[in-house]
């Protein structure tokens, strides 16, 4: 099987599964998840095959893209628009983590949606399942979790999403990337609103779609500008040296940027939307309304990573004209600023959240900010590295939280307690009840915090910090370091509140470990969370550097501009990251280890007003509501509908109607009556009267007629004789 054929099959198999499930097998749960898992499994297999081929076949650094397969798609005025699939270094590493995470999350979903459990009596499609009652052998009735009513629909949408992600990673032009981007946005909408009978889920889905749409709009403008200037959207043509040269040198009409800078900025706005960076971050926390596998896949591992992937892909465009060591060009400056700010901003908000998944959502936003900040200062390899490792441990963390929530729900069903299974302040002591979940979650949490040496997160985060430090952007360095400290703090807060200490509610006491089909993916992902970092150990790391080659950097060096820094490894960023990670973890454990049932957050008193701000997410949502949403509503509802449509336009119609009526009345009373009067009195009565008077001339007496006749004709004759012929002359 050639690589080109595999490149085409990998996205198309999940698409086929989507089609088959939605058309044929949606009644059977087993067949649906079998089709979905089978297709994704085969795609995983194909991805692994290509991955190993790519690694094996690529020892030289100079080849840029290899293995591409294109065909003519759209006939245009001159020539045709070609689309196709391509495999290069960036897509190879992305494909690796996408294939693994997608497969693991698919397997996990089978268990999450309680396949094999009985159908709940009160379960309705569109609402999350809330348990079924079964009788055990002794005749006592228990409540157990019930299977999701819309099981097949979930797998259909998930398969569609997998298709879109694979397509995005493997395609070779920006247009198909945009198409896959939008399909992912659609799946995100469908899956966030999966439990569509809940109003909060519906609103969250709409919010996600519209917010990312704002970013996508700018991205489309950027793509259009790029196409109109360079005439193509394929990578190998845009990112060639002379195309970049042309774009850099031509001046855009906006803000004094070059065209390359402007287009890069516009495409970066798409990333801001999709990867939930600062102004457009509001959709991601609300997206936690969807089921946990959705949160894991779409909003942690893959879809939001797609934004960073795009930024990585168009990095030659963004950094056109910049060489390492120069001052940053405006687009990169914007990227770095937004990334760093978002990292800190989101980390702060995460400290104040009580819902498990919300903490992880803000954590995702923060980590993506790290990646974008790294890219903004030109550290391409570091950003890509962090992308890969983050996907693994964030997926692990989300799946772990899903397992915890499942355990808590089991407890809720058992005790009939009315408690939110996602609230960390109602958990506690789950370490004993759910050991496997606890250890894998701990690994994931340490990776997120950057626990030294053994976790992947340490290596990638350290690389980012050191690159930022070495290029001299101190403000960004301090911001990122502070964010890392707070990240470690809230991670430990989350672990302590959830797993350590004593249970703070009855449901937590009755929680249960999840099924193997759910815990196996956790183990696999934990393995990657530990080991994925070891492929990117920098060569000049003290003591360990050099034991393993820095394979990652070598691999990616082919398509980026960064040159491996060979100067001595500065110890300051390493020291900072150690302090930040270990210090944050310790601080978190210390503050939260004694929270008991019913007591408030220990940070509330010391931070006071600031804590309220953190809990309310800095009121950004409220601001948007006031400034954007309400005016839009007013414009639609009041202005357009009531004033213009009903008032003005309908008013015109009513006025025309009333005018018509008035005109009719007018015609009737004045003109018609006048005419009738003329007809009646003047003409009819007049004629009758005249006739009556004239009829007296008809006496019926013959001789009167005769005499009148003769007399008058005599007169006429005399008249004629005297006028026509002149008096006396009869013209003989």
């Amino acid at each position: 099987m050639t690589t080109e054929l595999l490149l085409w099959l990998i996205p198309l198999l999940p698409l086929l599964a989507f089609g088959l499930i939605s058309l044929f097998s949606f009644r059977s749960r087993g067949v649906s998840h079998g089709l979905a898992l089978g297709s994704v499994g085969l795609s995983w297999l194909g991805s692994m095959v290509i991955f190993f081929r790519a690694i094996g076949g690529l020892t030289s650094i100079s080849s840029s893209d290899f293995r591409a397969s294109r065909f003519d798609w759209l006939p245009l005025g001159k020539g045709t628009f070609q689309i196709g699939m391509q495999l290069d270094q960036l897509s190879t590493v992305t494909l690796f983590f996408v294939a693994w995470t997608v497969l693991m999350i698919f397997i996990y979903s089978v268990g999450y949606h309680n396949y094999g459990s009985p159908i709940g009596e009160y379960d309705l499609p569109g609402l999350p399942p809330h348990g079924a009652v079964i009788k055990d052998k002794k005749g006592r009735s228990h409540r157990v979790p019930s299977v999701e009513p819309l099981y097949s629909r979930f797998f259909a949408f998930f398969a569609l999403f997998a298709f879109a992600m694979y397509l995005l990673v493997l395609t070779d032009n920006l247009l198909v990337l945009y198409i896959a981007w939008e399909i992912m946005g659609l799946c995100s909408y469908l899956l966030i609103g999966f439990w569509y009978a809940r109003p909060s889920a519906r609103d969250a889905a709409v919010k996600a779609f519209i917010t990312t749409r704002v970013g996508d709009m700018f991205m489309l403008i950027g793509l259009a500008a790029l196409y109109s200037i360079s005439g193509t959207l394929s990578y190998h043509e845009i990112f060639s040296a002379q195309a970049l040269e042309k774009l850099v040198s031509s001046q855009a009409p906006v803000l004094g940027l070059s065209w390359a800078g402007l287009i890069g900025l516009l495409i970066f706005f798409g990333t801001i939307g999709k990867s939930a960076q600062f102004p457009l971050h509001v959709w991601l926390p609300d997206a936690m309304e969807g089921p946990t596998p959705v949160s894991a896949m779409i909003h942690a591992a893959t879809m939001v990573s797609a934004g960073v992937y795009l930024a990585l892909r168009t990095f030659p465009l963004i950094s056109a004209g910049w060489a390492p060591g120069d001052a940053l060009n405006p687009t990169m400056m914007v990227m770095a600023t937004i990334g760093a700010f978002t990292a800190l901003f989101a980390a702060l908000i995460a400290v104040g959240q009580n819902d498990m998944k919300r903490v992880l959502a803000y954590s995702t936003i923060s980590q993506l900010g790290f990646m974008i900040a790294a890219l903004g200062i030109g550290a391409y390899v570091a950003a890509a590295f962090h992308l890969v490792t983050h996907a693994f441990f964030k997926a692990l963390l989300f799946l772990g939280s899903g397992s915890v929530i499942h355990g808590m729900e089991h407890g809720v069903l058992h005790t009939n307690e009315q408690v939110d299974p996602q609230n960390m302040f109602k958990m506690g002591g789950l370490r004993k009840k759910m050991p496997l979940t606890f250890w894998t979650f701990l690994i994931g949490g340490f990776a997120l915090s950057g626990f030294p040496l053994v976790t992947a997160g340490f290596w990638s985060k350290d690389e980012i910090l050191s690159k930022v430090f070495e290029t001299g952007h101190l403000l960004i360095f301090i911001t990122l370091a502070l964010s890392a400290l707070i990240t470690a703090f809230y991670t430990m807060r989350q672990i302590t509140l959830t797993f350590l200490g004593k249970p703070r509610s009855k449901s937590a006491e009755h929680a249960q470990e999840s099924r193997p089909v759910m815990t196996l993916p956790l183990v696999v992902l934990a393995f990657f969370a530990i080991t994925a970092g070891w492929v990117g150990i920098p060569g000049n790391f003290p003591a360990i550097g050099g034991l393993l080659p820095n394979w990652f950097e070598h691999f990616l060096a082919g398509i980026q501009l960064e040159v491996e820094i060979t100067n001595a490894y500065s110890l300051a960023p390493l020291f900072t990251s150690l302090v930040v990670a270990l210090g944050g973890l310790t601080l978190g454990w210390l503050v939260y280890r004694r929270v008991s049932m019913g007591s408030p957050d220990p940070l509330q008193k010391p931070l006071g007003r600031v804590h309220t701000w953190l809990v309310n997410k800095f009121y950004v949502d409220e601001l948007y509501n006031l400034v954007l949403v309400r005016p839009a509503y007013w414009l639609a509802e009041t202005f357009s509908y009531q004033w213009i449509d009903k008032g003005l336009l309908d008013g015109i119609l009513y006025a025309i109607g009333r005018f018509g009526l008035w005109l009719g009345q007018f015609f009737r009373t004045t003109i018609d009556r006048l005419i009738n009067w003329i007809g009646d009195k003047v003409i009819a009565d007049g004629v009758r009267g005249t006739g009556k008077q004239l009829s007296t001339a008809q006496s019926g007496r013959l001789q009167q007629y005769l005499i009148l006749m003769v007399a008058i004709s005599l007169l006429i004759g005399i008249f004629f004789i005297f006028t026509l012929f002149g008096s006396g002359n009869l013209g003989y």
Partner: protein
Amino acid sequence: MIPLSWYLIFSTALFCVGLFGVLARKNAIGILMGVELMLNAVNLNLLAFWSYLYAAQMNGLVFVAIVFITASAEVAVGLALIISVYRCRRIVVADEMTELRG
């Protein structure tokens, strides 16, 4: 010897007398007698002209013949009418025959 004018003036006078009779007589039959006088005046006129000027053509004579015929027909029918009216209404005065009034 006799100029044409004598005949013409005479026939005119006879015509006017007859006209007076038609217009002024009360009795219906009197009116009819006036009509006869007028017709005779016309015949005389025609024959005078024919005799003095147009004797070569026959149409003068034919005209006179037709007038004779018409006069007879008219008298017959007129008298029949008058008698018929007399039978119904017992009147013979023209002024009293006012069924065509209005």
